[in-house]
């Protein structure tokens, strides 16, 4: 099984190395860029606010990076199988769930590089910055949250992209039907906010995509 994993990992590395390398560079750079201002020696109350604003302004880059990494790595994991109509994969001598697990595991293994880069960047940024009183750095918490976001994004997009064009059509059809129902409901002046409800269910805790929302702060009170 180790040999199989190595083979799958190598293949996926070949397909998604550009994404992984760029993601790793970005993951390392974002925490460093977000604390640039904190390295100045003349700090005061205003600098604290400025620093928090600077850190917050970079905050949205983390979930965006996590989503992009999850999406692109998941697509790369299945692209070759889709092109070959899955014939090669389906004729390999192992249970299909194991093959899916190998692909999933290889994708996650590759994504540890950008996650590690975020950790190293966040730790370096924290060490280099002189924090005003009352502020604290959260490099580990930020990295864990980034790792969770990457995992969720990869898992969701991996599941979607593993399916056939028919599956993708069903998902898109369901979304289109939802929007259509909302338009009809709104046209009929009924107070039934389907999309709003869906947003709450998905994006607010404990929704499955809640990890992407809220404040992503390397430095906070």
């Amino acid at each position, binding site marked *: 099984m180790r040999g199989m994993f190595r083979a799958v990992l190598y*293949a996926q590395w*070949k397909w998604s190395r550009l994404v992984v390398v760029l993601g790793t560079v970005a993951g390392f750079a974002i925490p460093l860029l977000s604390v640039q201002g904190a390295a100045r020696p003349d700090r005061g109350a205003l600098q604290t606010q400025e620093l928090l604003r600077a850190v917050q302004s970079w905050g949205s880059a983390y979930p965006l990076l996590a989503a992009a990494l999850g999406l692109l790595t998941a697509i790369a994991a299945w692209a070759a199988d889709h092109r070959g109509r899955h*014939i*090669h994969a389906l004729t390999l*001598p192992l249970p299909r769930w194991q093959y899916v697990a190998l692909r999933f595991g290889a994708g996650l293994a590759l994504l540890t590089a950008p996650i590690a880069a975020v950790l190293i960047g966040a730790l370096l940024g924290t060490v280099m910055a002189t924090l005003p009183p009352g502020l604290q750095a959260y490099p580990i918490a930020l990295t864990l949250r980034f790792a969770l976001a990457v995992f969720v994004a990869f898992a969701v997009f991996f599941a979607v992209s593993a399916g056939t064009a028919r599956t993708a059509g069903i998902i898109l059809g369901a979304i289109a039907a939802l929007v259509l129902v909302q338009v009809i409901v709104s046209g009929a002046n009924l107070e039934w906010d389907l999309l709003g409800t869906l947003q709450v269910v998905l994006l607010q805790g404990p929704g499955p995509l809640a990890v992407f929302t809220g404040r992503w702060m390397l430095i906070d009170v």
Partner: protein
Amino acid sequence: MTYAIETEQLRYRVGKAFEIPALDLRVPTGSIYGFLGPNGSGKTTTIRLILGLLQPVSGRITVLGRPMPAQYARILRHIGYVPEQPHLDATMTVRELIDFQAAFYPRWDRARATELVERFELDEARLFGRLSKGQKAKLMILLALAQCGELLVLDEPTDGLDPVVRRDILSALIAYVSERGATIFISSHLVHELERVCDWVAVMDNGRLITESPMDKLKNGTKRLVVAGAPAEIGNPPFQLLTRESSNGAGEYWVVGNWEPDMTTYVESLGASIRDVIDLDLEEGFVELLRGFRAKGRAVRV
């Protein structure tokens, strides 16, 4: 006799367009079994059912003594498969594809793979997508042979290839069979090619098996007879009357299957006489079998 592949009342259906209603197939162990049929007859679908890539509606499939698709993972360890279309990743090199495949097969024969790379003159650093059609076919044969399976399932492996490449591939297959005693299940349009290498043959049309027989029996038993004075009704003959056509006053042409020389007495008992018995090669026999089947809509058991 043991069978490497056995299907029993196998039924598969895709919408309303195509159906395999009840397929009974028996591929003897150690044979080179040719699977013939026109385009759209169901050869590739049958192969996919045998490999567990498709789920049958009903019926039973046994491959190498195990039920398919229930034990697909165990069975696929012993099967080398070459599909109709190249299915490998175009962005991987020949060497990378060989290494990838080797990781999944515990009985992978590295020495054989190396020998075949040299014999087929494959450039290991070349991307699969950059290989010619013949080189792609050779690489897929290499991958199927180096995994040392007991059964090779080849879906039109030489289709569209030049004669030199076809000969290279067929000689590699024959060498493998003689060395390992493996079974080969090969579908092809190239009837003459199958005639040279196969010892069993089956013909399929429109999802139905027309015939399944040892090659020599099919070839020797399929004849064109020139018959004079034949009555309209010939009763229940001991041979299969595939087609019957008049021949410009010289009597009739009958194409028959399962023919043996002593059957002339039956024809003569009808008040007819046989003026000539013409041997048919496999291609002619194949065409006549199809014509006869389509005219009568029934299977021919040879």
